[in-house]
């Protein structure tokens, strides 16, 4: 593998004692680095044991290990987070990760735990280094320009899948909204109110302006679903207060989305892109639910006399029961 790499990079072949170690640097997002060293576990462990005078697991030598590894950005030495991992085939993977100074142009790397020659791959280039040798300053990679679109696409998908199939509670809420009336104006007004509202709280929460604990938000979301479904049993046309309530409930759901998005994490460099894309994904998920409901029952049966008694009432009852059950569960949980 290494030999093939060597040939590919056109290095003079009779030159070096190449071992079984390789290092790869990546710059996954603007301002961050991830450097992975792959090597044989046994020789590394032996050397660490000899250095420290004791035996132990790879991670237990962290302090000693750091003593012969140096990573600098624009001359500033980093103190990376280091994760150690052993593989079944006797290999060791050591991952150095962290944030580098903003706008850093170059970095250097030194790995002093081996005696052999090893390749350091950074972006498209491969540099051959001796064990212990400090590399020449190398260019800090910039994430490829396509990365904004990749981030957007990824968070769009995350937003969508957070509704379909993973967000049954939001699906039921949107169905509740849809079932109230078969008039397009009813659906349009409610969905708009809901969307505007949850966009506001999602944004405010992600920027840290708004902070409401999930233990409060989640039960209230369940209550909002129950309310909408129960109101469907007594109401068959859009009243102004309903739009207001849906807006209020939208504020709650937005905080719920924010909880999920916080868990997923937002890339620092593409915060706004990811936030907008996630929100757009959520909208698409909602529209998909409404579209599916319309195609399945609305289109053909909404104007039938039995539509309300056989579709709206039973479905709303089912939604209400489920939501009441969730409310109890979330309050108790």
């Amino acid at each position, binding site marked *: 593998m*290494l030999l093939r790499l060597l040939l590919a990079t056109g290095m003079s*072949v*009779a*030159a070096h*004692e190449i*071992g079984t170690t390789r290092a790869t640097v990546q710059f996954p997002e603007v301002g961050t680095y991830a450097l992975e060293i792959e090597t044989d576990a046994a*020789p590394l462990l032996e050397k660490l044991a*000899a250095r420290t005078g004791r035996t132990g697991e790879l991670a237990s030598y962290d302090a000693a290990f750091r003593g012969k590894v140096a990573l600098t950005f624009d001359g500033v030495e980093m103190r990376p987070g280091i994760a150690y991992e052993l593989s079944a085939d006797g290999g060791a993977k050591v991952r150095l990760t962290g944030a580098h100074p903003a706008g850093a142009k170059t970095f250097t790397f030194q790995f002093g735990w081996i*005696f052999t020659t090893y390749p350091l791959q950074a972006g498209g280039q491969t540099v051959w280094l001796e*064990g212990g040798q400090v590399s020449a300053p190398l260019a800090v990679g910039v994430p490829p320009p396509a990365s904004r679109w990749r981030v957007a696409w990824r968070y769009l998908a995350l937003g969508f899948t957070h509704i379909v199939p993973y967000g049954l509670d939001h699906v039921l809420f949107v169905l509740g909204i849809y079932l109230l009336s078969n008039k397009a104006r009813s659906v349009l007004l409610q969905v708009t109110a809901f969307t505007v509202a949850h966009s506001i709280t999602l944004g405010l929460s992600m920027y840290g302006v708004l902070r409401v604990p999930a233990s409060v938000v989640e039960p209230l979301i369940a209550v909002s679903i129950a309310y909408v479904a129960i109101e469907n049993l007594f109401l068959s046309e859009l009243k102004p207060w309903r739009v207001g309530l849906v807006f209020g409930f939208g504020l709650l759901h937005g905080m719920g989305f924010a909880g999920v998005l916080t868990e997923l994490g937002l890339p620092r460099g593409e915060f706004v892109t990811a936030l907008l894309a996630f929100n757009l994904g959520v909208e698409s998920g909602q529209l998909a639910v409404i579209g599916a409901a319309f195609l399945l029952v609305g289109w053909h049966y909404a104007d039938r006399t039995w539509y309300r008694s056989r579709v709206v009432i039973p479905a709303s009852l089912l939604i209400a029961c489920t939501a009441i059950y969730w409310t109890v569960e979330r309050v108790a949980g």
Partner: protein
Amino acid sequence: MIRMAGVLAVVPLALAGHDMWIEPATFRPVTGQAVAVKLRVGQELLGDPIPRDARMIREFVVVDAAGRQTVTGREGRDPAGYVLGGASVIGYWSHPTAVEMEADKFTAYLKEEGLEAVVAARERRQESGKKARERFSRCAKSLVAGAGDRVLGFPLELLAERNPHKLGGAALPMRLTYENRPLAGALVVAFNRQRPAEKVTARTDKNGRAVLSIKGDGMWLVKAVHMVPAGEEWASFWASLTFDLGPK
């Protein structure tokens, strides 16, 4: 005259050259058993694997009762080869590797390896302050299953003149040859895997002989380095011999 030296505790310099040795998976194989032959580069017998690299191998041979054969193995893999268990001498002679070193680093490294003659020669050539370019070759041997040593014909060759496994407490006479002629004044160093800091050292006499008082079980590495001018560059040869003195 044979100059003998005692046991020295040498603090290893980080800038010293790296040893290269052969490390069989076992020094005491069952006859006929396949024995992995590992190539290692490092210091104090703490080494890193060198996978088999056809472009680096000048000779990779095993000499046993059946004669001299090439050590076979899979390209790019560690261990670099396999031999059949039995009393044998394994040898690895590499093509040269080129390295470049800053002047002061090079001088310190020469002194560390006992190559004061080269330091003096660099002074005579008025190149002590210049960056040095060196091409080093490996001449490693290993004794398996209690075998006595044999001449393999490497450019720099360490030869145990008595079977190290049958010393019975006596010192080990070594002979160092460069291009088949005795090499005088070279530093020969031996150390044990368990106590790598305790170096047993001796300079070779005019017949290339150095006697090493090696005591203790386990794996031993005997090494010597020789360096000659090669035009503007320096060509060095790293001889090593590994064996294991039990317990049986």
